[in-house]
């Protein structure tokens, strides 16, 4: 759903205890981004660490660098295509469908306050978690990082693919610089995905071992209320919606702790960060 107003109309189609969070385009964009990212890491990282025996074994396993290079290029082009898809998707929704521009993706001062509030909560200096709207600061960070990362990694990749073409109008040192930028930006993205994205979105209490919302588009109502309480209240009213559907089974965390503990924030089990905004992983 491009706009907030899309939620109620879809809600009738979705099971009552689930809320639709991502539309089919966003899910597809995330799926392609995730798949190509994994393929690019698997075929690219061994080149960055080419001296490691493991890298040599891995590349040999797939039939040598000639094979993995082809796979890497196809996956790279696909990822760029996925980003183009996303740009067109936003443009179509905003310009032709006259939906609001997705301003809720743009970082605001509130996100910085949320960030520090969350750190204070983690360290015990604050009793309450920050209340999040449609996207929390981590989700915005993941999303905006792609707008930084894709141009860097895409352009440097294209420079390395077609060095003779690019040096027709750029200085020669751009090629070794592209090698540095491409590998380092890739490592940065990989580390962020593993350290932050995977932990908060899949290993956190309440969602472990996997959070399927970016693939199915749906989030259990109780979890939605917990993780995106501001948006939830704006759309469904505070607790009225919950009381209206008393038959909903409470969503279960991995360890079996019910997520619908009383609304006293400090003692509630911590909740995972939501899947990536706008259907993207990075």
């Amino acid at each position, binding site marked *: 759903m491009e706009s907030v107003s899309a939620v109620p109309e879809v809600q009738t189609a979705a099971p009552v205890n689930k809320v639709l969070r991502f539309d089919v385009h966003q899910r597809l964009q995330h799926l392609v981004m995730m798949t190509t990212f994994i393929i690019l890491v698997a075929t690219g990282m*061994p*080149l960055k660490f*080419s*001296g490691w025996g493991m*890298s*040599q074994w891995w*590349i*040999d396993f797939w*039939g*040598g*660098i*000639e094979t*993995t*290079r082809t796979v890497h290029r196809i996956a790279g082009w696909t990822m760029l295509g996925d980003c183009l898809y996303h740009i067109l998707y936003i443009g179509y929704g905003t310009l032709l469908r006259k939906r609001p521009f997705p301003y809720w993706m743009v970082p605001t001062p509130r996100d910085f306050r949320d960030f520090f509030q*969350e*750190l204070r*909560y*983690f*360290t*015990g200096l604050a009793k309450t978690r920050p209340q999040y709207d449609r996207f929390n600061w*981590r989700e915005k960070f993941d999303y905006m990082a792609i707008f930084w990362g894709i141009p860097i990694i895409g352009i440097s990749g294209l420079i*390395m693919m077609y*060095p*003779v073409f690019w*040096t*027709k109008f750029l*200085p*020669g*040192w*751009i*090629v*070794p*610089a592209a*090698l*540095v*930028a491409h590998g*380092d*930006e890739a*490592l*940065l993205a990989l*580390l*962020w995905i593993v*350290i*932050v994205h995977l*932990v*908060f979105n899949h290993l*956190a*209490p309440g969602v472990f071992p996997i959070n399927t919302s970016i693939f199915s588009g749906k989030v259990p109502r109780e979890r939605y209320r917990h993780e995106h309480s501001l948006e939830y209240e704006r759309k469904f009213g505070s607790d009225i919606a919950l009381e209206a559907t008393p038959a909903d089974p409470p969503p279960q965390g991995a*360890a079996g*702790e019910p997520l619908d503990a009383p609304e006293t924030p400090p*003692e509630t*089990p*911590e909740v995972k960060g939501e899947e990536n905004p706008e259907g993207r992983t990075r």
Partner: protein
Amino acid sequence: MPYNKRSGFFPALRQGVAIAKKPFFILLLGIVMMAATAAILRSYTSERAYGLDQNQCLLCHGNPDLAKTNSNSEKVSLYVKEEFLNTSAHRYIDCTACHTATPHQVDTPLTKLSLAQKCGTCHEYQYNLHKESIHGQQLLQGNADVATCVDCHSPTANPHNVIRVLEYSAPAYRKNIAETCGKCHRNETLMGRYGILEKVYETYMRSFHGKAMRLGTYEISRLDKATCTNCHGTHDIKSLEDPQSPVAGMENLARTCEQCHPDAGAKFASGFLGHKEATPQYFPGVFFTEIFFLALTSAVVALGVIVTGLAVIRWGINRWKV
């Protein structure tokens, strides 16, 4: 033979099968088969020489202790290792081809130069190219540091163990060339003597070409990536100061790049770091890209570790409290 209901048509066969089913027999059979396999494998890897030895030279020279004392009263080993001959490119050429028909009358003091000259009696073209190279020029002046024929064509720098270039184990096989050049060019003290301060091997291995060569397969048809010799030449390697060197000056360098990158041009060639590290003065664009991404990656990863680390601790505390 009448049919016996108990023992069937072939009582002897039945008895044989019964014996064959006994554990001791199976064990015995296993031991015999293992011994046979070991014997066959051993025959393939025996130390028997396959080289041509028409005059039975190896009867004496196959003895590791065989040695003589030369005019400088130095002990010189006369031992020829037989296994070396088995894989040698010249295994079907008799000893006398190089050592003359009267080897015991010849008293050539063996030097690197005389050895190269000996190779040159047959490999004339390569020898003449080598004489023109920086290695060959130094060799003619009596410098024994330089690479000659056997240094690049034998894994043990032994003329009896020269391996054909197209064999995987050859030091001059394309995939192995960087290692082979590295035997000397990674030696900092040796290179320091000639003012070659660049870490040529390490920078090559970090480059596009080096990574591709290292991770590529061994198939010769796919070893089309540049290695040392593609840019510097093979037998006729020139010093960088020699204007004839294919890598001396941007003009020559561009022509060398164009062997593989058609239409590359001098601007493309100017992106080559010259086996050096980027510094603020030398390739500042590359240097500051490195610094920028180092700082960015460290900062963002540190942020991620802090946030996730604190979150994990908080989740643990919350769980423990419940």
